[in-house]
């Protein structure tokens, strides 16, 4: 295979594996802060038990995020040297600010957050939790700014074939940036709330009825139930923004081959790029026109307007459907769970069993969404400025293939180990329940549990 597609697969594999963990830590930092503040306010030790259970998940996810993040900083040079040569003047500062303001903030204060209970005052420890949560969020801000700029570049000019910054405000707050940032932060919130709800449901199924389980379960379910409708609305706005700035991506998402009015909403199809047609299509008449233009006769852009300049249709079409389908499932599950918790103060067994695999539904939706938007940017690396094919490095295809294979094996093993540890932690917490010895008393009231507890 040629180095281009192999490099794309390798970068895709690396960044997909990486994004799993920031998606968790961005929102989990705030959830931990919530647990901590509830404990500070109520003095109810169940909140602190919930904190201790989930701070372990945070530490593990953060470590996974750091080591895969180190990989990312090398990948630009090893696989895509053309990228920084062309747009380094703009991507450089954004990446630098990501590293400077955020990465360090998280990494340095994480130590105090995880191990500092006995060594700093409660106030400093809460402050460290705030800074870590804030750091992950600021980190996301800069990376989303850069990614959005690659989608919808603004505020620059080309001199001698190299992009130079003209207006930094326009670069950072480029047309798609606010929408993408909100969409991603909400995705992180949903991922974490379903993870917490799912692992708490596992504890519930294992017979755990402790207060800390209920508290975590309610936090997860209610957060998910609140966030999912907001996310559906934000996603719709993001789609309309894409229609305005990247219509060819919308055409591929809807598998709409011809521009025109009364475009149906395709529910299922196998897009065939050679025949420029959909096979086995199931569609709602006028649906796409109605959603995108709010009128049955609204004109929706088709792929025929962008010959040779539109993304591959099949992965974009299906990535989008997997994301939306998962989102609708999240809506159904979180609202029914919220109903039972609110009205019946219990959880039916079948629903709990459904919630356990739904623990990773956030990952599925997030990855599907990113595939939609990133593959949807092709054939461009930076829309209108740099084609992906022109940025690839001079590395032999065999080297890329070999390293790609080892990365994949490593990632599969790590993912199994990670999920295994999550289940192990949940079952251990279920066994201990509210009898788990609270770490420390008196002056060490907030210390970490000792090993083996």
């Amino acid at each position, binding site marked *: 295979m040629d180095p281009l597609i192999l490099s794309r697969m390798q970068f895709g594999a690396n960044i997909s594996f990486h994004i799993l963990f920031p998606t968790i830590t961005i929102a989990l930092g705030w959830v931990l802060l919530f647990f901590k503040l509830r404990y500070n306010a109520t003095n109810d030790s169940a909140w602190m038990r919930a904190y201790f259970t989930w701070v372990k998940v945070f530490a593990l996810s953060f470590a996974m995020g750091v080591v895969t993040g180190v990989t990312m900083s090398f990948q630009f040079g090893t696989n895509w040297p053309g990228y920084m040569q062309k747009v380094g003047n703009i991507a450089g500062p954004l990446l630098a600010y990501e590293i400077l303001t955020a990465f360090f903030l998280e990494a340095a204060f*994480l130590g105090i957050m995880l191990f500092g209970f006995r060594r700093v005052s409660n106030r400093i420890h809460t402050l460290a939790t705030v800074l870590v949560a804030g750091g992950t969020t600021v980190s996301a801000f800069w990376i989303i700014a850069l990614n959005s700029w690659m989608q919808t570049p603004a505020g620059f000019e080309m001199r001698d074939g190299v992009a130079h910054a003209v207006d930094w405000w326009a670069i950072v707050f480029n047309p798609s940036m606010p929408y993408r940032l909100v969409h991603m932060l909400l995705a992180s919130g949903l991922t974490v709330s379903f993870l917490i709800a799912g692992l708490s449901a596992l504890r519930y199924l294992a017979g755990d009825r402790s207060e800390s389980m209920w508290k975590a379960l309610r936090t997860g379910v209610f957060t998910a139930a609140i966030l999912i409708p907001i996310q559906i609305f934000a996603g719709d706005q993001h789609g309309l923004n894409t229609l305005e700035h990247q219509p060819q991506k919308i055409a591929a998402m809807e598998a709409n081959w011809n521009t025109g009015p009364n475009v149906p909403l395709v529910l299922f199809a196998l897009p065939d790029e050679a025949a420029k047609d959909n096979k086995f299509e199931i569609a709602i008449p006028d649906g796409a026109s109605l959603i995108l233009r709010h009128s049955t006769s609204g004109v929706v852009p088709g792929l025929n307007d962008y010959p040779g300049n539109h993304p591959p249709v099949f992965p974009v079409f299906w990535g989008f459907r997997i994301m939306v389908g998962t989102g609708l499932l999240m809506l159904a599950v979180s609202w029914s769970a919220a109903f039972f918790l609110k009205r019946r103060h219990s959880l039916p067994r079948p629903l709990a069993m459904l919630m356990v695999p739904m623990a990773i539904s956030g990952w599925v939706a997030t990855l599907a969404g990113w595939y939609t938007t990133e593959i949807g940017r092709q054939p461009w690396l930076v829309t209108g400025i740099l084609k992906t094919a022109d940025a690839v490095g001079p590395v032999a295809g065999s080297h890329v293939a070999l390293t790609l294979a*080892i990365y994949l094996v490593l990632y599969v093993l790590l993912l199994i180990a990670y999920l295994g540890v999550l289940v192990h932690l949940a079952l251990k917490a279920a066994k201990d329940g509210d009898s788990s010895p609270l770490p420390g008393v008196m002056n060490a009231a907030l210390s970490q549990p000792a090993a083996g507890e």
Partner: protein
Amino acid sequence: MTYDWPTAMPLIFAGLMGLAILIYVILDGFDLGIGILFAVAEDAEQDTMIAAIGPFWDANETWLVLAVGLLLVAFPLAHGVILTALYIPVFVLLVGLILRGVAFDFRAKVPAGKKHRWNRIFFLGSIIASLAQGYMLGVYVLGLDIGPGGMAFGALVALCLAAAYAAMGAAWVIYKTDGELQKKAVRWLRTALVLTALGMAAVSLATPFASPRIFDKWFVWPEMLYLSPLPILSALLFLWLWRQTFHLPKPDDRGALTPFLTLAGIFVLGFAGLAWSFYPYVVPDRLTIWQAASATESLAIILVGVVVVLPIIIFYSFYAYRVFGGKATDLTYD
């Protein structure tokens, strides 16, 4: 040479990048070294050794991201050339760093029966990452020569750097522990020092002959005179530290941090020598820092952030090391 912004900016960033690499090598050096020493430590000792680096390693490794990040954003041309030439070693380094990074957490969270497996992975990841860094340094010193000679030199530097990291690790254990483990660490330090000294001597002798360019930079009058303190001071520090190892640990744990600081001093001297060998090239003999630099106005934007953030980072790094100062015995990594 005129001193305007387009001239000064790449110099400033080369300095910042050098600083980040130096801090990384010293800080991650000790925790990689502790990973290497896992091979000779017992179970209970391993827990204490992890506790000695637990609160720091995340931040330590972030300096590597900053160093590579500065190379990426300030010298994008060089980033591309260097990392495509070192494609496979970079990959090996990353696999090593991934393995050891996740082993930190997994070894503490998996069921007790599986802990051994993660201890082994922690050792493997640490030694792989150290060797890969040394190999990359060696190949880079010879101007990204990836022929048999370059590979042999790379292997030599790899072993030398791994030994140096092990010495750093042992020095850190001396600082952070007491009792039997501390005494054991003194013996580790002595062994690692011998290996490091042998390696450094071999590398110092081989470098000028392997690279005529570096030979020309060092063995000309009067530069030779100005540069002579670097090797002489390094040798004296080595000898002094070697003698110290026969008197450690001292009563009341006096000077427990001295071996670490001495080693850090040797690293600084060695780094200064390397920097002199390369200046003004960022890719040896191919790209100077001015040829490889980003646009001045983009560097200026980054510099604003660096000037604001770097002092804060350094301040709270000191704060974190103070918070977690003292012996590591009462800290648990869970």
